[in-house]
């Protein structure tokens, strides 16, 4: 129970369904702040108290479990390492894989519980083959199956998502009706451990003198020309347009986007939007929810709240190759590709390389300029909640 409305209603529903429910708040920060700031919805003492009050109202026991060391080792360190390597990680997937449905679930099972219930928006049902299937939530706007795509059959068998059939407004209304004081608490959007939402500032401080902090050059992909300098590659994500601070406009006057990040040399390569278009993706470390496919025609989602792309997925052991039938833009290594068959989550894998659609050069790009949404969307990968 994070202290937010979703986990509070999930706990209430689980209890009402007749389960013997115990509320657990995860202490993930080694030095929790006293009060919420900005858009965060967990990890402060105030949030812990909100969760406790929700448990009181529901009438279930409540405890705080200190998982700050595990969270730091498995999620925060990984987040820094991935950025140091020039990739764009999604810590929420990592937290679900390593903390909520691993460390917490293992401890819960050992202590005699049967399952971990969370306030995630996703649906579970048992298929004809007896396997537990995970499907997108009814509320597509709130669907969180993407960040759960790392869960294996074993984990799904011990998971409950009581909110999957509801819309967010319905959940808020139910919280109000149940007398849960968190009913109107704002949704959280940022990474929980980046206190003020300033991702770049956080990385700058935490990465210290590791390579991505060394600064480097911003180069044009086509001409090789140095267009500017930067303070560290941690501040960039593939597909990013804003904040490049390139003094000179491109010769054709069109905006330039981050195409590639090389953390060791510190080189950030930029180019026109059409060079972001990707038709094939390599990925590794697959995690399958059920049966392991070897070839599948379905869809893939490449970032939290991102669009679905029709795709053919080829699996060979630890390697996954994804042929995109609808090209995607601004694909960042480190992000998860989650594979769907209709609404069902098949599994996920971590993107290692994105192969661009061949173009004749920077002169035959699309005529319409990119929208701000496109640029903003590219950073979604690290703000999944």
């Amino acid at each position, binding site marked *: 129970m994070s202290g937010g409305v979703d986990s509070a209603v999930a706990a209430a529903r689980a209890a009402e369904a007749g389960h013997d429910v*115990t509320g657990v*708040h995860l202490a993930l920060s080694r030095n*929790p702040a006293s009060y919420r700031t900005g858009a965060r919805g967990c990890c402060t003492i105030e949030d812990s108290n909100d969760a*406790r009050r929700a448990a009181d109202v529901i009438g279930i*026991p409540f405890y705080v479990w*200190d998982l700050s060391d595990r969270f730091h080792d498995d999620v925060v360190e990984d987040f820094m390492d991935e950025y140091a390597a020039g990739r764009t990680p999604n810590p929420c997937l990592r937290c679900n894989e390593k903390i909520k449905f691993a*460390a917490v679930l293992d*401890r819960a099972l050992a*202590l*005699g519980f049967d399952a971990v219930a969370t306030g995630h928006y996703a649906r579970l049902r048992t298929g004809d083959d007896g396997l537990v299937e995970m499907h997108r939530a009814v509320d597509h706007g709130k669907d969180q199956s993407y960040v759960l795509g790392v869960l294996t059959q074993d984990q799904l068998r011990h998971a409950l998502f009581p909110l999957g059939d509801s819309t967010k407004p319905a959940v808020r209304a139910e919280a109000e009706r149940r007398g849960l004081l968190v009913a109107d608490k704002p949704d959280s959007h940022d990474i929980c451990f980046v206190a003020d939402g300033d991702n770049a500032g956080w990385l700058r401080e935490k990465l210290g003198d590791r390579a991505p902090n060394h600064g480097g050059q911003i180069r044009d992909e086509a001409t090789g020309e140095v267009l500017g300098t930067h303070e560290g590659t941690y501040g960039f994500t593939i597909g990013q347009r804003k904040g490049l601070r390139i003094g000179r406009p491109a010769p054709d006057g069109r905006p330039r986007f981050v195409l590639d990040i090389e953390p060791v040399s510190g080189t950030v390569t930029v180019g026109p939007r059409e060079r972001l278009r990707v038709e094939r993706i390599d990925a590794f470390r697959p995690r399958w929810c059920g049966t392991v496919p070897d070839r599948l025609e379905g869809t893939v989602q490449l970032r939290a709240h991102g669009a679905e792309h029709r795709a053919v997925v080829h699996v060979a052991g630890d390697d996954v190759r994804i042929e995109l039938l609808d090209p995607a833009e601004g694909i960042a290594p480190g992000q998860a590709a989650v594979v769907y068959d209709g609404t069902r989550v098949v599994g996920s894998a971590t993107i290692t390389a994105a192969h661009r659609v061949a173009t004749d050069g920077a002169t035959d790009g699309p005529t319409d300029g990119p929208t701000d949404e496109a640029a903003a969307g590219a950073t979604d990968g690290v703000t999944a909640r």
Partner: protein
Amino acid sequence: MNTAASTSPVYLDHAATTPMLPEAVEAMVRQQGVPGNASSLHGSGRQARRVVEEGRERIAHALGCRPGEVVFTSGGTESDNLALKGIAWARRARDPRRTRVLVTAVEHHAVLDPAHWLADADGFEVELLAVDARGRLDLDAYRASVERDPGSVALVSVMWANNEVGTVQPVREVVDVAAAHGIPVHSDAVQAVGALPVDFAASGLDAMTFTGHKLGGPLGVGGLVVRREVEVGALLHGGGQERDMRSGTLNPPGIAGLDAAVAIAVEGQAGHADRVGALRDELVRRVLEVVPDAHLHGDPVDRLPGNAHLGFPGCEGDSLLMLLDAQGIECSTGSACSAGVPQPSHVLLAMGCDPDQARHSLRFSLGRTSVPSDVDAVVAAIGPAVERARAAHRGAR
């Protein structure tokens, strides 16, 4: 998980708060409906003042001090803060060299934190005095610390008995060393009053903390006994109540409840200690039969009669606490919490435990309402709980 027992809980957390004595409830409730500010000069005021002063007299009689030496406060934390800060300030005001504050490493946070505050924010130096593996003050190290430069010591604070592991401290010896140099000694005796023989005058102490809710009195009222000759700077300034040491309207209902509880607790101390001590010994013996590698922390003999602080290797205390709570058995990990997150106990760390050992403990504390069936319930539940908690701990490796 089993659902919490529908019957009343097995309450074994008396060291946190023990239920109020019926006599204390009655005395307090009776006074609640009576108007009057004890500082007012009219009849109602005099009536309220009489309740306060009669309470002060009875408490003084029970604790072995003079009525004028009892300063009523809101409880243990305030009393400890008043003693540490108030005495340190007054001592330094008399002689600016007196800046060393000596406290044992196993004090309650209500002593440790004011001591650290004096060091961090007010120019004092705090010295944490070492304890042995049983949690008892190392007297040689203490003596060396004092004698290194007696003229620079502002005060010494040593608790009468430890709230976590139950170990009784050598207060008399501490006072003897300090008295030779005219150094005042404070003792937090909140766990001791009613559980051990406590006589302020005989102890030689200069100040002593006690509180209502640890001995069958109400929450939110307690006191600091301060020897007449000891100067104490005030924390709360205002109407000048309580010898100008503690301003604030006096609390006749709370004091009435406190008075009744202290009188009964001290009067019945010996019998209480015998009965509860025997029950505690049986709990320890039978738990060790069920879990042979468990062990008792603290001094095996010289300890609070109701305290059973047990280490269960390979477990986390908070797992055990949760499993027992689910069975209606209420105890404590005995350590301080921040946001409900259990930290390794500073007491166990000071006793030489490593952080893992410091997390594997449970404190059962028995009190006036404890009965043999409470022990039976713990003995029946502890084996399976330890087994599960160990499995959870192994999984977390």
